[in-house]
């Protein structure tokens, strides 16, 4: 697996790789492309849940549809932040934000998303789920966290993150590619943290996929 250089990225962008739109040539770095903040912010709703528990994603047999969906919709507060409007990210807060760009990776490329170093030095962290799988298509969700001690004002359109690309030596065949639960999304959503691990959660039974 080797990283793509600026020239390699440019060649791929002509054909199989999509990062659309790039607003300025300076968005393409030596071995990465800068990603801009989109216009939606999802914040964990205060008081909606006492703690994060994988068992909340596994439903008791008697859980009804109302409870299931209410739990999902109560978890986050959704904010639309138009261009030039500020969003204040407080210390210790986690915010899910889409990229402005639509990204499509071919089957032989993997993307790795990180913070831009200038923002990281201000305390802004693009959290930990950094891998974008080959074949992915959609916005990329940036999990923003403020590790500093003072709030950070963010504006949609700012370049907060960067994505580097790595070539996969032996790409998976179509039959072996499992669609991501986030594939084709236009805005962030909560994922299923218990997906596929239900056997480790006692006395719970998954009834709805």
């Amino acid at each position, binding site marked *: 697996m080797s990283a793509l250089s600026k020239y390699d990225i440019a060649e791929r962008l*002509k054909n199989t790789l999509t990062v659309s739109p790039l607003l300025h*040539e300076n968005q393409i770095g030596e071995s990465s492309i800068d990603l801009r903040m989109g216009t939606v912010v999802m914040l964990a709703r205060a008081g909606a849940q006492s703690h994060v528990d994988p068992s909340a994603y596994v439903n008791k047999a008697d859980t009804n549809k109302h409870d299931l969906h209410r739990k999902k919709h109560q978890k986050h507060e959704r904010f639309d932040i*138009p261009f030039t409007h500020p969003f204040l990210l407080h210390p210790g807060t986690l915010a899910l934000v889409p990229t402005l760009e639509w990204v499509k990776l071919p089957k032989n490329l993997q993307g790795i998303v990180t913070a831009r170093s200038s923002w990281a030095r201000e305390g802004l962290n693009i959290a930990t789920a950094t891998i974008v799988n080959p074949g992915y298509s959609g916005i990329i969700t940036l999990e923003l966290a403020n590790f500093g001690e003072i709030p950070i004002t963010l504006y949609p359109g700012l370049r907060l993150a960067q994505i580097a690309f790595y070539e996969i030596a032996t790409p998976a065949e179509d039959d072996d590619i499992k669609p991501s639960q986030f594939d084709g999304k236009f805005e962030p959503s909560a994922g299923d943290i218990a997906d596929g691990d239900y056997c480790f959660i006692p006395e719970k039974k998954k009834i709805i996929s």
Partner: protein
Amino acid sequence: MKAKDFLLNECENLQTVLEETLRYEYGIEGSRVFYEECEHRLSEITKLISVTQETAAPALSEHFYKLEELSALISRIERSSLKEYSWPFLEEFKEISLSACTDPNTTQLDKDGNPYPPQVHVLSEGGLSSYQIYVDGRRVPSRRKILTIFFPRTLKHYVLLHPILGHEMGHAIYSIAAHEKALDQVIKENLIQPSKYFASAQNFTEWMYRNPPQSVKVFLSVIEAELQVNEQNILDAYVDFAAWEEEFLCDFIGLLMFGPSFIAAISDLLYSVDSSGSEIGNFHPPTACRVNTLIEAANILGYETLKFDPDYQPVVDAFWRSIHEKKQGNEWFDVFTSDQIRETLHKLTAFLGPHENALYPTPTKERVQPLIKKLLVNIPPVGYEFSTHQVEGKSKPHLSFDENVDFRDILFAGWIATCNDVKSLKFEHANKLCEYGILQQRAIKMMQAQI
């Protein structure tokens, strides 16, 4: 309390309710304009009530209704949150519509001596038929109009269907006294009076009753049995023909403002309400008459003759086929001749032309085809292309932007892309791609303006 005291007390209540609206985020431009306009109206109404005698019952009654209208307007704001509609679409829509909706004869001018542009706010509530634009009454003591746009709750993000608002904008423009007379003249002189069916009441009833299609006959027999509507009284007891004229007018305005996406959107919605296209409405002409007229108008405007490269022409042809499938073959529904439609379009183009961005610029292959190309490979459609040039054997990136891409081009491309043969691009997904494309295109324009 006496009536006057009660109304003055209600003024104080309204001031309190107005303060409470400041808790809400209800528009990209913030709350100041709406707040100040409502405060101005409240102040004017309070003054009117204060100088009215307790014994002047009719005047107090009129003030009551003014207060009630203001109260309804303020209460709507609490259900008009930014996240409840597609704000990028709305911002684009405002850019094409506000000039035509500004009353040129208002005596209320801003500090630069210009009429205040209308304030727009949005509600997403109601079912499929709730698309409308509510305009203030003419007697409201206002500095600026407030236009309330209603989206159906279920379709609040369906930008591909939102061109229907072009028709509603027609009603909003027509509601301005300064425009009403001119628009009436255009429709009457070019469309109605030359029409062999609508030129007189006798012509109308002959058209309606002599040889209508079977589906219309059935409808007429139903309203005769249930409402005692017949050939002698249909124009007095059932059809409001002035409303029909306004409907035809607003269809033309919608088409000129939005282009082909307007026909696609309005025909889908109208036929969902009246699948036969034959229902005679009190205020609305039969759907098939409207759709047939619009298809002929699109032909006159040259939309169908636009040619694309061979890779894309089939999907464009499929789009126009899908439109023509909605045309009713029975000539009874063709209520206007091509010449009448052409002349009306010509006059309305002259009317809308001076209003910046109001007219949809004739689409070109250069603007629309790249958008279709993106949609067909599942990418939001924007005026952006990536290419490279070689420097010392290395690929250097080159970005090119088409700032002329209009959000109406994106909607046109969206409708075309949904007609792809393999149907791999579902309507809902194409709609989301277009909504995201409109957002991205705004970012492109902002960056290009900076550069």
